[in-house]
Structures are given as structure tokens and as C-alpha cells.
């Protein structure tokens, strides 16, 4: 099994790349700070958003029922999926009904979570991701490495080479303007000829039965306003009570995500256009279970801005792919263990617990505390034998001061005379990429006795 430490070690073999990746993300974190500082009531906004989401989680059943009732009255067809498989089958059922062969998609982390694309492709449906970053990773046959900037791990020269190979584009010297335009031309054709369009949902509003989709590229709108069928897929926690609450969330989302004051397009869907069919799939896939875990339910407040990734020293230096989960970074490390504790058991340890993630989170999720809590759950269920034995030995040594004195002197002598290669062997995990401090001449006890005598 590929663990986070192993995958991160692999990523760290290319030091220049690590530094480049680190800087790219810190650039975004910095933009976030600039945008946030322009809002005088930022902390009040965060607290309000957190409280609104708490209200939603405490009344999720009634809000979902209210939302469904209103959405149906608006002419939206509402579906419920208990897990990823059911979600995929529902989507395929709708596509089959309309004999859809070509589907355009805007960004949806939920469909990544449900592995919708490979499922539909297996059944002969052409699926085109239309967000530029998602299109890049789709063409490269890779998963996204970030939830807001899916291709943040790729260099422009690599994208240039990828476009030449997959789209037959002329070499463009890695020029972002040229490459973006090449993708625009190619995807415009796909938009105009799509049989259906699928989007995610940023916010669903209980009291109107409508939903909001945010993009900068305009790809969600290009897809749905041209295609005869619109399918929107949402995790059930995307709900908010009323439209007025959008004021809070739309102010927080883009500032946290990319340092913009708002996304270019914030589209509010209430009814299908004339002649169009609109479907909405509400998905559980483990969310009800997370709702029942008191220590971890706050993670369901997440609005998927990615700020915790951009600020995380571990994410920035290990890359999104090292997490092996659909949502990487700090928030991914508290969401993923809920889905599969064994598979993602190393993720809560991919953190320094510095708390920066919690500080930037726009809905005030206590991310670093949850990481710490997951560690405790994991150590109970999958104890680390080496550490257990080490702690037992330490306990004995500290119990007998005479034993501590003898072993201390022994260690000071041995560390000086044993060859480096043995001290920094594989058993010394602490000594990986760092040196032990210089060995002191005497113990503190001996030093104290001597100096007390001297100074009287």
C-alpha cells in the first residue's frame, strides 16, 4: 500500500520541483491574505458561516425535505443516492433516457469521489472535463492534485507537450495565453455539440429549491445553457437555509480560494429553461456517518475552497497526489479516514499540527484538532508496535533515577565513538534528513552540581 510518507519521499526526490510547488501555492495563500484584509468584518463572516452550517447540520433532514419540495415545484427532478455506485447509476440512467453520447462536465469533486468518469466511459459515453485544469489532468490521465487548481503540479512546458501529443496543437513554448486559447477552441466544439451537461453544486438553497454554481472560466454556464439536459450533483451537506445566506458564503469562498473578491460567474439555477430537463442528485456516500461522529462532523461544513491546502507546509512540500485521496491536504486528511480508515491511516499524520489550516478556514473547521483526534483513533485501532515498546522502556528508565544516570553517561560516550553510519541507521527515524544535536560533555545534573559549588 502506498502511504503518504512514501509518496511524499518520492515527490521530494526532485528538490527544485518541491521548491517550485511550494512557492506556487504560497503565492495563492498570499493573494488570499491580501483579499481577506480588505474585509473589515472577516472574522465575523467566518463565525457567521460556521454558525449557519451548524444550523444546517443540526436540521439537515428537514432542510433536505424543504429543498426537495421546492426544487420539485420548480420543475427540477430530484434523485437520492446512498453511495457512489447509486449516484453513477442514476446519472447513467438519465443519460441513457436521452441517448446521450457526449457529456460535458464542469468541476465536481463529488463525481471524482464517486469515480463517475471511468464508469461512464466504460459504457461508451464520451466525458469531457471542461475546467482547464481538469481538462489538463484528464488528458494526462491523472487525478487532480488540488480541488481548486487541479493541475497546479504541472509545469507549463509539460502542458505544452501534453497538448501537442493529445490535441495536435503546435508547439507553443509553454505560453499560457497560447495554451489556454488552444483549449478554448477545442472545448468550444465540445460545448456546441454536447448532448448533456453535468455540474457540481456550490450551494443549494432550501427555501427556494435552487442551487448556485461558481466558476471563473464560464464553463459550467457554457455547458448547461447549450445542452438539452442539465444534471447537477451535490453532496448533501451543500445546503444552506436561505438565499440571503449566500451573501456570507460568496464573500468568503473566492477570497479564501484564490484571493479574488468573487468568482467571475456565480450562477443561480431555479428552473430549467424552456425545453430543457434539469436533474439534481443528492449524495450521501458516508456523509451521514460523518454526521454521527461528534469529533469529526464539523468537517461537513467545508465549502471546498482549498485554502487549507495552500497554507499547509506538508501539502506544499509533498504535492496533492501524495495523499492518494480525492480531496488532498488537511481537509482531505480528516474527510478520507471516514471513508476508509485503513487505506487513509497515514493521512492524519501528514501534518505538523501547526494549525494554519484552521486559521484560514472560512467556515472555522477545527482541522488540526480533528487531525490530532484521528491520530488517537488510528493508534487505538492500528497500534505502532515499535513506539509502544519504546514508550514502555522509557517509562522504566524514568522510574529509576540511578538507571537514568547510568544510561545517560553511556549514551554520551557511545554517541561520540560509534560510527555515523550506525547512529543514522534505518532504525533512527528521527535522524532522517536531520542531525542529532552535539553531545554535551557532561549531564545537566553534573554541570549543576559543579557550578553550584563554584558560585556558592
Amino acid at each position, binding site marked *: 500500500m502506498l502511504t503518504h510518507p512514501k509518496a511524499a519521499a518520492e515527490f521530494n526526490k526532485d528538490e527544485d520541483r518541491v521548491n517550485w510547488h511550494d512557492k506556487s501555492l504560497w503565492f495563492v495563500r498570499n493573494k488570499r491574505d491580501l483579499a481577506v484584509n480588505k474585509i473589515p468584518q472577516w472574522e465575523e463572516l467566518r463565525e457567521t458561516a460556521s454558525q449557519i452550517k451548524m444550523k444546517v447540520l443540526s436540521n439537515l433532514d428537514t432542510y433536505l425535505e424543504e429543498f426537495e419540495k421546492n426544487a420539485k415545484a420548480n420543475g427540477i427532478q430530484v434523485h437520492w443516492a446512498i453511495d457512489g455506485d447509486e449516484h453513477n447509476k442514476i446519472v447513467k440512467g438519465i443519460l441513457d433516457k436521452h441517448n446521450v453520447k457526449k457529456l460535458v462536465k464542469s468541476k465536481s469533486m463529488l463525481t471524482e469521489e464517486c469515480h463517475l468518469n471511468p464508469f461512464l466511459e466504460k459504457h461508451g459515453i464520451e466525458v469531457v472535463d471542461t475546467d482547464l485544469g481538469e481538462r489538463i489532468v484528464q488528458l494526462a490521465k491523472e487525478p487532480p492534485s488540488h480541488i481548486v487548481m487541479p493541475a497546479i503540479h504541472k509545469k507549463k512546458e509539460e502542458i505544452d507537450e501534453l497538448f501537442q501529443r493529445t490535441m495536435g496543437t503546435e508547439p507553443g513554448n509553454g505560453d499560457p495565453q497560447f495554451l489556454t*486559447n488552444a483549449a478554448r477552441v477545442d472545448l468550444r466544439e465540445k*460545448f456546441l455539440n454536447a448532448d448533456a451537461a453535468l455540474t457540481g453544486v456550490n450551494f443549494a438553497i432550501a427555501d427556494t429549491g435552487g442551487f448556485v454554481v461558481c466558476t471563473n472560466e464560464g464553463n459550467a454556464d457554457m455547458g448547461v*445553457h447549450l445542452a438539452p439536459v442539465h444534471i447537477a450533483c451535490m453532496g448533501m451537506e451543500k445546503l444552506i437555509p436561505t438565499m440571503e445566506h449566500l451573501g456570507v458564503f460568496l464573500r468568503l469562498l473566492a477570497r479564501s480560494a484564490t484571493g479574488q473578491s468573487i468568482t467571475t460567474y*456565480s450562477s443561480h439555477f431555479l428552473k430549467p429553461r424552456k425545453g430543457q430537463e434539469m436533474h439534481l442528485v443528492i449524495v450521501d456516500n458516508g456523509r451521514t456517518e460523518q454526521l454521527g461522529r461528534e469529533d469529526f462532523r464539523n468537517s461537513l461544513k467545508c465549502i471546498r475552497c482549498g485554502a487549507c491546502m495552500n497554507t499547509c507546509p506538508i501539502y506544499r512540500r509533498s504535492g496533492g497526489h501524495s495523499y492518494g485521496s480525492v480531496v488532498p491536504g488537511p481537509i482531505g486528511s480528516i474527510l478520507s479516514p471516514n471513508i476508509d480508515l485503513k487505506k487513509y491511516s497515514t493521512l492524519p499524520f501528514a501534518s505538523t499540527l501547526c494549525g494554519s489550516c484552521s486559521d484560514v478556514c472560512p467556515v472555522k473547521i477545527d482541522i488540526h484538532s480533528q487531525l490530532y483526534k484521528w491520530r488517537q483513533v488510528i493508534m487505538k485501532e492500528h497500534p505502532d508496535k515499535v513506539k509502544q515498546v519504546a514508550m514502555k522502556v522509557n517509562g522504566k528508565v524514568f522510574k529509576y533515577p540511578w538507571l537514568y544516570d547510568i544510561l545517560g553517561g553511556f549514551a554520551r560516550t557511545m554517541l561520540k565513538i560509534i560510527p555515523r553510519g550506525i547512529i543514522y541507521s534505518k532504525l533512527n527515524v528521527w535522524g532522517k534528513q536531520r542531525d542529532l544535536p552535539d553531545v554535551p560533555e557532561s549531564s545537566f545534573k553534573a554541570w549543576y552540581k559543579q557550578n553550584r559549588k563554584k558560585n556558592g
Partner: protein
Amino acid sequence: MDSRAKILDRIRQNKPEVDSSFDLNQFLDVPFDDLVESYQASLAANGGNSLDLPDKGKLEGILLEEVGDKSFVDLTGIIKSKTSFNYEGIDQPKELSEVKILIVAGKLGVAENAAIWLDDDILHEVRALPFIVERTIFILDKNNLVPTMHHAYQTLGGMKSGFGTFIAGPSKTADIEQNLVIGAHGTKSHLVVLV
């Protein structure tokens, strides 16, 4: 039990009972800067252009100059001496890809982020228009500027039609090494004429 019932049942078993309290009014009663000035600054940051035009009489002339010989749709009725593309005669929205410029009057503009509200009523239910064209020209009455998103939703007072959208600038992406490129899938340029 079907999935709907199962999900709702699980929620009822697992949901927390936590009190929450918040007050949205605290965001409405705040001092704000000059709305026109901050609107223009926000728009510039989003990659859009603005034009402060106190003399409404000059509007048609300016729009005609912007349009040139390109195919356009004018939903404001300001251009009298040239004919718009006839969007009513089309069967499928994709036929709109011939249209290069859209001229439309925004319902309101938000000073803190330059977003302009359009909805089905304003768009005559031709939702694809502001996204499929290369250039949008918005006419915005300065009296319809509000300071923040909270004020915007208060002014809108709910969804009055089947679709509505805030548009804050030209389409853009930074998906290639964080380099900002204007003109992703939607418009390549975005002009707001403040009247």
C-alpha cells in the same frame, strides 16, 4: 426502504443538537466608501473596464463605435440605427455562437466585487447569451450600485425568475502555473458603462 428514506433516517439518528446563532444585519449596517470609485477599482482588479458616462445622450454613439461591423445583440434597445442579431428566430442556443457582442443592462452592481446581476427577465430567457459572446457591454445605472453582497441579496429580495447570475468580469483562468489568462470559455472582454 428506498435511498431517500434511508438517508433521511440516518440523518435523524446521527444529527447533532447544537444551538447556533448569527445575525446578518451586522453586515448591512456598516460604513462604506464611495460606491462608484470602489466599483471601478473592483472591476479593474477583475480584468474588466469601466466608463463613467454622465451624458446618456452619447450612449448610442459610443455603443455603435464599440460594435463596429460585428454581429451583436442589444437587449437595452439603445441602438436604434442598426439591427441586432435576431435571437428569437433560432431553434437551438448553439446558433448564438455567431453573436460576438452582447449589450445588456444590469439590474444591480456590487461595489466590493464588481458583480452585476442578470436574470431571465433581463436576458429574455436566452441564458447562453452572456457566456457565448466574446464581448459583453453592461449598462449600469449608478443608482443601482450597492456596497456588498449582503445588500445585493437584500435588494434582489429572492429569485424573481428561473435563472440569475452575478457576472464580475471577463472569463479567466489561472490553471497554467498560476498565470492569469483573460478569455477562458466565456467573454474575452467586459466593459461596464456607468450612467
